[in-house]
């Protein structure tokens, strides 16, 4: 059975793009727009890996930003789920905070989506040695 990835991002376009990319890589992809809603999904779907955007408009999408969602997942859920926090904005680069929140990896979402794909594959043990 295909491994399951949960995308949590408030931007619909980003969700659609990442969904396509990871489906193409052979994963099952589910998505959520807000942190709160994600918690239910995690219970139900039991994803293998969660991709989390750091910046979520808390005014619209609830009280939790990416770091907080990560903290909740890692604390409350006793699931062997991997979490990758990613960010697209220069001023929000804060890998230390991500690590403290319990993230397994922290990725700057650059122009090359390959970086994110490689990080996912590495955490899920799907990375073939391409060196």
């Amino acid at each position: 059975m295909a491994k399951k990835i949960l995308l949590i991002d408030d931007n619909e376009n980003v969700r659609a793009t990442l969904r396509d990319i990871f489906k193409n890589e052979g994963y099952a992809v589910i998505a959520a727009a807000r942190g709160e809603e994600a918690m239910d999904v995690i219970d139900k779907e039991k994803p293998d890996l969660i991709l989390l955007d750091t910046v979520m408009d808390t005014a619209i999408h609830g009280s939790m930003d990416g770091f907080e969602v990560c903290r909740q997942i890692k604390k409350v859920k006793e699931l062997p789920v991997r979490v990758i926090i990613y960010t697209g904005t220069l001023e929000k680069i804060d890998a230390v905070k991500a690590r403290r929140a319990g993230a397994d990896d922290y990725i700057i979402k650059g122009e090359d989506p390959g970086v994110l794909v490689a990080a996912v594959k590495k955490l899920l043990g799907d990375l073939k040695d391409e060196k």
Partner: protein
Amino acid sequence: MKSREKINEQVEEDLRKTREELAIQEWGNKKNLEGMMILVKELIQKGKEIKETRAKEETILENIGDGVLAVDRKGSIFLVNTVAERFLGLSAKEMIGKDVLNIINLEDEQGAVPSNGKKPILSTLLGNSPVSGTYYIKTKKKRFPASFTATSVMVNGRIEGAVVVFRDISREKNLEKLHADFLQLAAHQLRTPLSGIKWLIGTMQKKILGPLTKKQQEYLDDIYKINERMVGLVSDILNTLSLESSSVAAKNRPVLLSDFYKDIAASFEYVAKNRRVKLNTALEADEKLIVETDPEILKNIFESLISNAINYSAPGQEVIVGARKETDAVLCFVKDGGIGIPESENEDIFKRFYRASNAKKNKPDGTGLGLYIAKMLAEKIDAEIFFDSKEDKGSTFYVRIPQRVAANRL
């Protein structure tokens, strides 16, 4: 002992936490650095793309055959291309940052420097756009005619600068001159034999060579008329050419319109009577209307307009010559109730050799130069010439002469 163990445990715990914290920090820093590298790489890539686009734009700019020059809203030059450097005999370094007024020396054909407001770039910065014109550029080494088109650069509805494109039109000017020289020579050559014919006809009409039969007399009269028409045509052509080569410079004198109209009406008295057309002047209440202009040129314009008005009116109709004051101009007019101008031909009426279709039918022997010359003359005195016309109802031709307010009255 127990407390010592506890202390040890505490120390161990602190050490573990510190190590953990250090690991987090180290991991975070490494990740942050990786992220920064990705962004830096992207920025470099973007920078490269921008450079490439710029290079492309510069190549286009440099390969335009025209001179291109851009100024900010204060008139300070910030961009020139190689063609502009060549035309102006200055390097970009010598021009950039300088006031365009100090870099480009403009003058008209006679060598007079145009007022700042007329200069294309300044005019554009003052809010007119686009502005086109032909001026001579004077550089250290040469003087050449150039055609200009200046366009303002608007940012958020505000003029932030201007771009001017200009080209050397020496070649075109030379061709124009050759063309004019040729026509002028041809016209002179035509005039001489025409005067000869006129003189010979006169001799025969005065019966110096002996008596003539009635038929011979009639034929001679016809030949005389045809010859006169030919003389008129040649003189029109000569007038046109002299205007086009702009060798006539306009003078500025106060002209009392009431006197001016009286003189001109007197000169048309015979023609008007002959065609049984009434020629009246209407100066409205203001008898002391004065225009500041070139009287000779104004006279030529009115002769052309009045002669048309009389010629295209039917016997018994009236031609009114008048004027009225406007805020900063005097509007003169010549009104007739004649054949008018077909609407479809309104645009062509001032063109060289153009004759309205109904005019050709009514008077087959016009030259089609009268209104063309009138318009050229009007331009010489900065006047505006336009008309209002309805076919079969008549035409009114207007000449708007701009006035400095102080010169309007005696």
